[in-house]
């Protein structure tokens, strides 16, 4: 060991410190991702995308054989649901027209969301059990930027873009311990912060913190993004309340949220590259 330190150990330690500092500095001074990460991401992108395609093909084949009965039942249930939703659409068309008439009558201005989407495939999932991060196959080439929200096909929030390269980006999902989002209880308009929690990571849940003492949450209450601050669009569904608990101090309450999106079965997502809130 002494020979190691006297000959090469000091140089290896020196190189480690230099590389670590360089990685930190590059990360701190770059807006989407450091140049090295970007290059590494671009170089490994074909391999990751290829590997993801192979995994998807293999799991698709096995699913085809194992889930025929379940798929048939799901098909019947979905047909019924479509019929009910078509009825709801007709009703909401009528409601929307009435809303427009009343707005015009009261001289209220229109409030709407305009989203631009970019579809993306998940090419990698985080190897670590201490984080919940996805890598997607779209990047700055497709106008993806930091802090863009990512949703699934049903419009449920998956996460937020936290690193972006030329043709790749990483998404910190809603259940990641470092995730923090302004949230709103849809029914009561109470605001809170939806954040990931390490003890809930394995169960795929997250917490709703900073609830007022007069909160009136019930199980099943829908939690959506608040849109406060303008960083994220409002109204994106995060999940529903599973349980309301009191924290260890006994002074405040928090809710356990069951996310609407099933992260384990997700293969394709949509990145909201642009949104407008017109008031």
């Amino acid at each position: 060991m002494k020979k190691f330190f006297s000959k090469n150990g000091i140089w290896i330690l020196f190189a480690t410190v230099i590389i670590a500092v360089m990685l930190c500095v590059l990360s701190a001074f770059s807006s989407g991702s450091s140049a090295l990460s970007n290059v590494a991401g671009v170089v490994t992108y074909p391999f990751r995308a290829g590997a993801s395609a192979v995994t998807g093909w293999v799991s698709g084949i096995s699913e085809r054989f194992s889930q025929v009965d379940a798929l048939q039942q799901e098909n019947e249930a979905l047909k019924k649901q479509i019929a009910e939703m078509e009825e709801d659409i007709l009703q909401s068309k009528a409601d929307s027209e009435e809303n427009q008439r009343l707005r015009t009558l009261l001289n209220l201005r229109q409030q709407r969301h305009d989203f631009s989407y970019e579809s993306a495939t998940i090419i990698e999932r985080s190897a670590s059990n201490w984080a919940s991060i996805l890598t997607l196959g779209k990047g700055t080439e497709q106008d993806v930027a930091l802090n863009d929200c990512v949703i699934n096909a049903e419009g449920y929030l998956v996460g937020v873009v936290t690193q972006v390269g030329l043709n790749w980006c990483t998404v910190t999902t809603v259940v990641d311990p470092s995730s923090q989002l302004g949230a709103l209880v849809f029914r009561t308009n109470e605001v809170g912060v939806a954040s990931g929690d390490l003890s809930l990571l394995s169960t795929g849940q997250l917490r709703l913190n900073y609830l007022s003492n007069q909160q009136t949450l019930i199980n099943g209450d829908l939690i959506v993004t608040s849109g406060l601050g303008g960083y994220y669009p409002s109204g994106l569904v995060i999940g529903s309340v599973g349980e309301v608990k009191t924290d260890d101090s006994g002074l405040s309450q928090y809710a356990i949220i069951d996310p609407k999106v099933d992260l384990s079965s997700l293969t394709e997502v949509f990145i909201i590259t642009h949104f407008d809130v017109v008031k």
Partner: protein
Amino acid sequence: MSRRDLTVKWALYGAAVLAVVLVQSLILNYIRVLSVHPFLLPMLVGVIAAFEGPQGGCTFGLVFGALCDMTTQAAIPCFYTLDFVLIAFLSALIAKNLIAPGFFCSLLVSAISLLVTQLFYTLIFTYHSIGSPLGILSLMGRELLVSMVLSPLLYLLFHHVYRKTKTD
């Protein structure tokens, strides 16, 4: 060892590491036991360092760690660079002073590699007030248990490479 032998040795190690990384990302990331999946990357650094000693092990840890930091997002930008160099150093120290490189040494360094990585995460999360102590301990225990099951396979793979490339 000649330059050519050295190149062949590390090329074989590189191929074995790539195989492990592929297995990790294509298969293991999708298998959940006790709500965690096996995490082999720190363990492979420890096992290689146990065989190759401090110089080779730490250099490998530095290069592999930097590559991991450039291609994956971790808690801090230089997480794996620092983590893997420390793992390599500790593993080489154990192999040199405590147990001769072999099956039991690999088991021990694999466990220590995982623990060092977990402690790094714990430090960072504690600094950012993320996670309760119970939650952290539970995750540590489950990850250790599930990952250590595959440690003998890592030993077999890298021991095979080590024997093939060893020059007396």
